Structure formats: structure tokens, C-alpha cells
């Protein structure tokens, strides 16, 4: 019986020839990640361990991104705790505010995540790096602490679901529509404890940024990880960004999958997840009523990359956001911010009546920079629309692509670029 791509990476990192679904293993880690919310708890836990510092100062990444620039005194104390820990342990990959970004956009850009790696991060969207052919998964702070101390983590080897992507997506359909379509199809626990393995000729029609978006939201289907095969595009991305050695793993032909789905990308439509679960999806064509919107957020670890900003700018160019609309654009990293500036995208946003913020997770999790009042509605390119996620428990979040979000900002109601005059 063969192994899936995920199983092969895990076997190699556990020093085993063969693993199968359900097996408990201990694997060597290539990178351990934490942010300003989860790291302080991990640091406190690590201090209780009988260990002498971290396992490897180059294999830990600390990225204050959730509540930075510090939103209040308590957040400032958390960031200070992380900063001092990084200094004390000579952590190579600590990113201060001027060089930071949203962790899951930043780490691939900095070349810290490559194919064949095993990565844990104390943030649920750590699964993003599967886009490059790595096994990466979210854990809690105690796992992060143990990972920082020992360089190892325990895993239950996951079973897998295969998604065979075929065809080419139409204009204004992007990675976000692909993953929202899949979550709508299998549900928020449809891939519980499993790996989501994306294969097929359709992948060549998806940009790296599309793939990051898709892998990023594997957790929204309950998945342990999402993973893509490593093709020329992925290799050229890694060569451009990283000096690390990468290793390409391929699934065996007789690998076992619990389920298999064929997704024809050419048939997908702009897709929106209604409150209060990412599985409550409708295509733009299924929305008959006017859904008036107060705020639009374009950004996050899901959709704050350059492709996303380019699409949003293409929609907003020469247009203006609706009266009373608050449109907040957040480039995910400093490098993306700078490139967007050089390409004139920021000018387009500001002229359209949007605001542009320094990189932060802020509004996605209801931290700051765009909190919703009672009864308000937001179209957001983020990843979760749970009750109270962005503010008041009686506010509503509609998850969508940058194209739909930008068009909705212009229309003042849920829309798509093809509907704008």
C-alpha cells in the first residue's frame, strides 16, 4: 500500500521507511513558528521545562503580527515578552515591526518554508506552506514550546482526501473561490484530522498566491494540512526567495485516499461564504437580494498578497467606493506594501476612497483596525466569519475573494466586477 505526499514527508522526518494513517509518530521539525498572541504562552511553558535554551536558533520564527503595531498596553507587554525571548535566545528569525508582515505571507517570502519541510506553528493558518509542498500544520502554544525546546513534535499520521483540479478558472475567479467552493461542498469538518491533497493539471492554472490562499484555508474544512505537488512554478518561487535546500516528495501511485473529488475550475463562479460559517457558501449568481455592506476588508494571511492587491486595484481603478463605505486594504508584508506602492496600487486604493494600513492581522480576528458595531455587515477577504469574529456578536461577515470584495466596496452591496457598470 502506497503513501500520500503528506505521509511520505512525515515518514522521512520520523526516520521511518513507511507510515500509515492513524500511526503515532515523533517527527523532526524544520521550523517552529509563533506570533504575539501564542508565543507568550509558549515562552511561559518553555520556562517550566528542564531545557537549556532552544533546539536551534535558526529554526524558530517569531512574528509579532496580530496586535502590532501594539494596539494597547497589554499587547505591548506581550510583544515585549517575545522580543526579549528572541534576544535572550539569539533567535535569527525574529521580525520587528519595520521588517514584518503577516506570518504566513512573510515566511515563504523570506525563504523560510520550502518543499519537503515539516513545520509547526502556533497559529491555525500555518497550513499555508503546503502550497510549496511542505507539511505544515497549526498547533497550540504548548506544542510550540515543546517544539522550540526539543525540535520534535508528535503527530497522528493523517488519512487523506484527494482533490483533482482540472480546467482553468474564468476571469475574476481565484484561489479564494476554489477553496470556498470546496469548503461549501465538504463542510467545516469535512476534512477533520485529514490532509487535503490537491493534484491535477488544473494546478498549472493557479498562481502561487492562489495556491497559498487554498492551502491557507484547509483548516476551515477541519484539515490537518493542505498540500500541493511541487511544479516548476513552485520551484522558481523557492529559488527566487530561498537559499534553503528543498526536497520534492510525490505521492505513490497506489496511495490510499478516503475520498476523491474532481473540481473543474472552469465551472467555478465567484463564491461568498455567508454568516456564520465558512461552509455557508453561495455563488454570486445565487444571491438574488441586495445585501447592503458597511465595510470591506482586503488583506490577511489568506488574501493580502500581491496578486490579491492587483486584482482589487484593477476593480477599483477609476472607480470610487460607495458613499458611507469603509474600505480597508492591508498589504500582508512590508515587501508587498512596497511593491504595491511602486506599481501605483496604493494610489489607486486611496483615490478610490479606501484606506491602506501597515501589515497586521488586526480586523480579521476582531483585534483592531476595523471592528464592527452591532448590526453592521462586512465583506472580507479573510478566512473566518464566526459569530463575533470581527466585533459585535450581532455583526455579520461575508467571506469572499479580493475581486468580489473590491466590487462590493464600489457597489455598497455584495457584487462582483462583472456587475459593475
Amino acid at each position: 500500500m502506497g503513501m500520500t505526499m503528506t505521509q511520505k514527508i512525515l515518514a522521512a522526518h520520523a526516520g521511518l521507511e513507511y507510515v500509515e494513517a492513524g500511526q503515532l509518530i515523533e517527527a523532526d521539525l524544520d521550523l517552529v513558528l509563533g506570533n504575539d498572541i501564542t508565543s507568550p504562552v509558549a515562552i511561559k511553558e518553555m520556562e517550566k521545562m528542564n531545557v537549556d535554551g532552544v533546539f536551534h536558533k535558526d529554526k524558530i520564527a517569531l512574528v509579532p503580527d496580530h496586535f502590532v503595531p501594539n494596539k494597547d498596553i497589554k499587547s505591548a507587554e506581550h510583544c515585549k515578552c517575545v522580543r526579549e525571548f528572541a534576544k535572550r535566545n539569539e533567535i535569527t528569525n525574529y521580525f520587528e515591526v519595520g521588517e514584518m508582515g503577516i506570518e504566513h505571507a512573510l515566511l515563504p517570502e523570506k525563504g523560510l518554508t520550502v518543499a519537503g519541510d515539516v513545520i509547526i506553528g502556533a497559529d491555525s493558518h500555518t497550513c499555508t506552506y503546503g502550497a510549496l509542498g511542505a507539511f505544515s500544520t497549526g498547533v497550540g502554544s504548548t506544542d510550540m514550546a515543546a517544539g522550540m525546546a526539543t525540535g520534535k513534535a508528535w503527530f497522528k499520521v493523517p488519512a487523506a482526501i484527494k482533490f483533482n483540479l482540472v480546467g482553468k478558472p474564468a476571469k475574476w475567479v481565484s484561489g479564494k473561490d476554489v477553496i470556498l467552493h470546496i469548503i461549501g461542498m465538504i463542510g467545516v469538518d469535512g476534512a477533520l484530522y485529514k490532509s487535503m491533497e490537491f493534484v491535477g493539471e488544473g494546478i498549472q492554472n493557479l498562481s502561487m498566491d492562489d495556491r497559498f490562499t487554498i492551502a491557507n484555508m484547509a483548516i476551515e474544512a477541519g484539515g490537518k494540512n493542505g498540500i500541493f505537488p511541487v511544479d516548476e512554478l513552485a520551484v522558481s518561487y523557492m529559488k527566487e526567495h530561498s537559499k534553503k535546500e528543498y526536497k520534492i516528495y510525490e505521492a505513490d501511485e497506489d496511495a490510499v485516499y478516503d475520498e476523491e473529488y474532481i473540481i473543474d475550475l472552469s465551472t467555478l463562479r465567484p463564491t461568498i461564504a455567508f454568516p456564520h460559517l465558512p461552509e455557508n457558501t453561495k455563488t454570486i449568481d445565487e444571491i438574488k437580494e441586495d445585501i447592503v455592506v458597511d465595510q470591506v476588508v482586503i488583506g490577511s494571511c489568506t488574501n493580502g498578497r500581491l496578486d490579491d492587491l492587483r486584482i482589487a486595484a484593477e476593480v477599483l481603478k477609476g472607480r470610487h467606493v460607495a458613499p458611507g463605505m469603509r474600505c480597508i486594504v492591508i498589504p500582508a508584508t512590508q515587501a508587498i506594501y512596497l511593491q504595491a506602492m511602486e506599481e501605483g496600487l496604493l494610489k489607486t486604493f486611496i483615490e478610490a476612497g479606501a484606506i491602506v494600513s501597515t501589515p497586521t492581522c488586526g480586523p480579521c480576528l476582531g483585534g483592531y483596525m476595523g471592528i464592527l458595531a452591532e448590526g453592521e455587515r462586512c465583506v472580507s477577504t479573510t478566512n473566518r466569519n464566526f459569530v463575533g469574529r470581527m466585533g459585535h456578536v450581532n455583526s455579520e461577515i461575508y467571506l469572499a475573494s479580493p475581486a468580489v470584495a473590491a466590487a462590493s466596496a464600489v457597489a455598497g452591496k455584495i457584487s462582483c466586477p462583472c456587475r459593475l457598470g
Partner: protein
Amino acid sequence: MQSAKGTVFKYGDNVDTDVIIPARYLNSSDPAELATHCMEDIDKEFIHKVSRGDIIVATKNFGCGSSREHAPIAIKAAGVSCVIAETFARIFYRNAINIGLPIIECPEAAQAIEAGDTVEVNFDTGVITDVTKGTSYKGQAFPEFMQKIIAAEGLVNYINQK
């Protein structure tokens, strides 16, 4: 291991970590402070009614969403002795074990037990007894590896013992 006995708070599918502990309180990592906001966005009365030893019962995918360990920390610090669910989201499952919050998967019990019932859980046998209804169920026992972590009262102690 010990057993748990308490009054049940019952919730439905997909109780996410944002309602267990909203992110607006994540500028703190103090268990006692987090506990005062536990379940706030799904059940404002929870924190006023919960007594030490009480039990949360929910249906599918409990703890979905964010990886915040603050969620099981808040539940444990609020005095909850055990969470029973049909299924748990995987990061919550790991986190609960790692911090020593007993959790148990049992679809039959999760469906049948109602709010306000008195329930007893034996962690050694996995047997869940609804004292109010006079019924009992067999929950899924932990694999041996996880039992060792639980017996050590969390991953940190387990690593220290190794």
C-alpha cells in the same frame, strides 16, 4: 486517573474558539482573567452559572477555528472538569491534552445528554454515566501515548519526565 462529575452545559455543532474566548481578550494570557470571558459570545450566562466540576457537552467539531490555547485554558480555569463531544477540531484536541483538560469523544452521549443533567465520567474506562437519566455510554479511550501525556498532567511534565 480520576473521574469527573458535574452539571452539564450543552451546546451544538461547530462551537469555535472565537466564541469560547473572543480575540478581544487575547491581549491577556492569564488563565483566571481568560476564564471570566469563557463562552461569552455564545452563552453570556455560562460564567455566572458554572460551578467547579461542571461538564460541557457539545455535538460536532467542538473547538474549531483558531489554534489559541487560550480556549482550553479558559474552559479549564472556569472550573470545567471535562468536555464531551461527538468530535473535536484537531488543534483543540491536541491543546486540551497538552494542558491537561480532559476531553472525550462519544457521539451517542453527545447526542443524548441534555443541559442540566448530572453526568459522571470515568477516565480510566471511558464510561460516561448520565445520572439524571440513568443511562451510560462508552466513550473513546485515548491511545496509550496520549494517556502518558495526560497521566503526566500535560506535555511539559511529560517532556520533563523523559
